[in-house]
């Protein structure tokens, strides 16, 4: 009953699984990934589509941050945004090959989420500046976009690494919402 809202996938909520990512977190995540990919490939060519994708990204970042204040436990920024101490401690454990497993985002993931959202917002802001004309703004926008792309690649690498270390499929969890306890 409690998992009725996830439809057919509720079957996969076998014993030992818990719902971690609420539907909004998942929808926002994959919409964000889609908008980013769209904005990146249309950047040089199809400007109207590029702008729509860009505004979409800014709206999603705003919505996600709002959800980070009022959403359920694992969606809240207070659950996963680490202070410097916690982040360094986690990275040290990671280097030693024995990081603790988290049900929500781990501290490195949490820091990466902040970096990604800030990078996306900065890229969006520099994109608006190009509307005022000038090669300098266009270059700034390109640099910002490429920094954000680098963060995205690191993000995906982090997801793969963490999945391997804890023998779980984090990508599937971000699709279904469920994780092993």
């Amino acid at each position, binding site marked *: 009953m409690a998992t009725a809202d996830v439809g057919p996938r509720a079957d996969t909520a076998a014993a030992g699984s818990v719902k971690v990512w609420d539907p909004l977190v998942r929808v926002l995540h994959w919409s964000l990934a889609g908008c980013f990919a769209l904005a990146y490939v249309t950047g040089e060519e199809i400007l109207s589509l590029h702008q729509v994708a860009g505004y979409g990204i800014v709206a999603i*970042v705003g919505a996600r941050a709002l959800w980070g204040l009022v959403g359920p436990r694992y969606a809240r920024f*207070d659950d996963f945004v680490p202070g410097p101490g916690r982040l360094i401690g986690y990275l040290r454990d990671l280097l030693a090959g024995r990081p603790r497993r988290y049900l929500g985002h781990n501290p490195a993931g949490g820091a990466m989420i902040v970096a990604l959202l800030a990078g996306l917002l900065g890229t969006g802001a520099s994109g608006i500046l190009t509307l005022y*004309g000038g090669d300098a703004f266009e270059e700034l926008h390109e640099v910002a976009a490429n920094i954000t792309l680098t963060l995205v690649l690191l993000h995906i690498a982090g997801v793969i690494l963490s999945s391997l270390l804890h023998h779980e499929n984090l990508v599937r969890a971000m699709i279904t919402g469920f994780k092993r306890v």
Partner: protein
Amino acid sequence: MMNFGKVIAFALIAGAVAVGGTALAQQTGKVNVTGIRLAASGESDGNGPEAGKGERFSVPQVAQRVSEQGYTDITEVELEDGNYEIKARDKEGRWVEIYVDGRTGKVMHSEVD
């Protein structure tokens, strides 16, 4: 740690609102300013689209507009997102990049190359 997440969330919300607001202001501001300017100075002189119709200048029209304003040696006219980027020489003979509003034919901005 409790407050750290909230501070970041608030900062991101404020940033998103600021970026979205600026975008909106830029877009609506452009439409209004253009309409008023065209109407006030009666610039629709057959050398461009009718005032208020919101049509875009064609490449020959925009090139003529720019050359009337004293630019010479137009070597490149590029349509970018509804506006034109034109490479030409200014009155002093320097190579410049001119940004022209695609709907009004006005030079919005120019830079020495």
